[in-house]
């Protein structure tokens, strides 16, 4: 029984999520034995492969470096995974937009189910995952010969970077005439990634407009925080979509989550309620967000935020 982990990467760098997925793979390996391989597929991914080789517990990094895998489009990446899957009992990817895009293709072509957003490993065939926006946790057992799994990174602590795996090229090249990459508009930010940040401060509809999100900048600078948002704030055009936290946005579980002008709808809570410490700043003392907040401050954010920044 061996496990294949699909590495997440962008801009020639390994994404932090991969170390969490390897941790999930280790739990499966501990339950049944077997090696962990990491697949790096892309174009110009030598540095990604080198970083992946340092992840603890990984025996081998397999590198498919070819133009057809550039931008990790689902059609060629899925076809590559199908080619390689025969060697494995489990194939794991993070529940990133890349993992979600490609893994169901692998599962369908191998005629097996996929387990999405796994947060716990009970044994080599039994896993837990949230359903209904995290309002229930299901334990599911898969009798499929191949387990295809996406892993929610916040469910597992990252492995460390002191490993030393071998690196091997994968020569498989597939055809793709169906989909073409046109462009990417990626948010530029010096701040930590939302999913990896130790502190996250998010603004909601209460921020009033996009300009006012600047009130969060100074605090984020002082705390080394990432900035997130509710869907209402994204829908209203205050901030771009990649900042959305929630059931259908990003899932975060930082040490400290500060919700500002966010009411606390279940869809938002689904994305942040596993944070260690939650602070809510809201002028409505009945707002549901206070039911999950460790520390609630009832007040007008336009007064609270500048004061908070000055006192940190």
């Amino acid at each position, binding site marked *: 029984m061996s496990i294949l982990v699909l590495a997440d990467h962008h801009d020639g760098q390994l994404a932090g999520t991969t170390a969490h997925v390897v941790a999930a793979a280790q739990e499966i390996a501990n339950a049944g034995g077997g090696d962990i391989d990491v697949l790096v597929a892309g174009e110009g991914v030598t540095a990604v492969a080198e970083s992946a080789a340092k992840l603890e517990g990984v025996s081998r990094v397999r590198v498919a470096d070819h133009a057809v895998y550039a931008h990790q489009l689902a059609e060629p990446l899925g076809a590559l995974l199908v080619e390689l899957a025969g060697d494995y009992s489990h194939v794991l990817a993070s529940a990133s937009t890349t993992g979600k895009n490609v893994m*169901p293709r692998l599962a369908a072509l191998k005629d097996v189910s996929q387990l999405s957003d796994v947060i716990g490993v009970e044994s080599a065939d039994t896993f837990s995952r949230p*359903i209904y926006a995290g309002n229930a946790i299901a*334990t599911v057992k898969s009798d499929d010969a191949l387990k295809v799994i996406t892993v929610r990174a916040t469910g597992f602590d990252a492995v460390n970077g002191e490993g030393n795996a071998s690196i091997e090229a994968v020569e498989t090249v597939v055809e793709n005439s169906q989909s*073409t990459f046109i462009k*990417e508009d990626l948010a530029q930010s010096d701040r930590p990634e939302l*999913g990896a940040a130790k502190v996250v401060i998010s603004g909601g509809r209460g921020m009033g407009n996009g300009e006012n999100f600047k009130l969060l900048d100074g605090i984020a600078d002082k705390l080394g925080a990432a900035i997130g948002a509710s869907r209402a704030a994204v*829908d209203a055009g205050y901030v771009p979509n990649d900042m959305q936290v929630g059931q259908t946005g990003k899932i975060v579980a930082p040490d400290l989550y500060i919700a500002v002008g966010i009411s606390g709808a279940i869809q938002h809570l689904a994305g942040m309620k596993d944070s260690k*410490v939650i602070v809510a700043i809201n002028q409505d003392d009945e707002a549901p967000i206070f039911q999950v907040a460790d520390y609630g*401050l009832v007040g007008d954010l336009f007064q609270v935020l500048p004061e908070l920044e000055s006192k940190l």
Partner: protein
Amino acid sequence: MKVLVAVKRVIDYNVKIRVKPDHSDVDLTNVKMAMNPFCEIAVEEAVRLKEKGVATEVVAVTVGPKAAQEQLRTAMALGADRAIHVQSDDKVESLAVAKLLKGVVDEEQPGLVILGKQAIDTDNNQTGQMLAALSGLPQGTFASEVDIQGEKVSVIREIDGGLQTVELSLPAIVTTDLRLNEPRYAKLPDIMKAKKKPLAVKTPEDYGVATASKVSLVKVEAPAERKGGVKVGSVDELVDKLKNEAKVL
């Protein structure tokens, strides 16, 4: 061009579910059901394509119990021309749904299939991708813009770092993200008219698909409850608690 839209009957998104005391599943007795929000967006997009003259016919399809016909009627009230109900009282998992939808795609030969990105009950986010793989068609998932030009469709996708644009050959599979459009409400006359639109009833056997899954539900539990904490009276008190009590600063 014919557009096929897949809609799922799920719990209304405002309802907070409860886990059954015996932990066998969630309790859905007497719970309000509705069309999955992402499917509403899928129907809206298909209807807009028809209004723009790009689509000639919109066909809605669902897999589920008899009651799921309500959601097909809703889709027709919103503008779908006809509907296909693949009736099954079993829990049909994403893989089997994808196989059944492939059967419908083979039969109907649509130019475009639109699905939601995710059903808010299982939160699976799989079916569209599985259908694409099984049908050998390209996919544009998590779409926030869909633009058909001749033999191709350009899709703007919401990805973790921002937006990605891909161009796909038609026929293709698209799954909707929240910002693709804002669905309309059905008007009463349209709801009346929808009652007379054609609805075909099929079974999984018609498509030669076995719906049994190799994944079994062992148990369902409520998540760890978070207890609400305290209200603080001032920014000073907040900073003090975060430093000295929670020790996160």
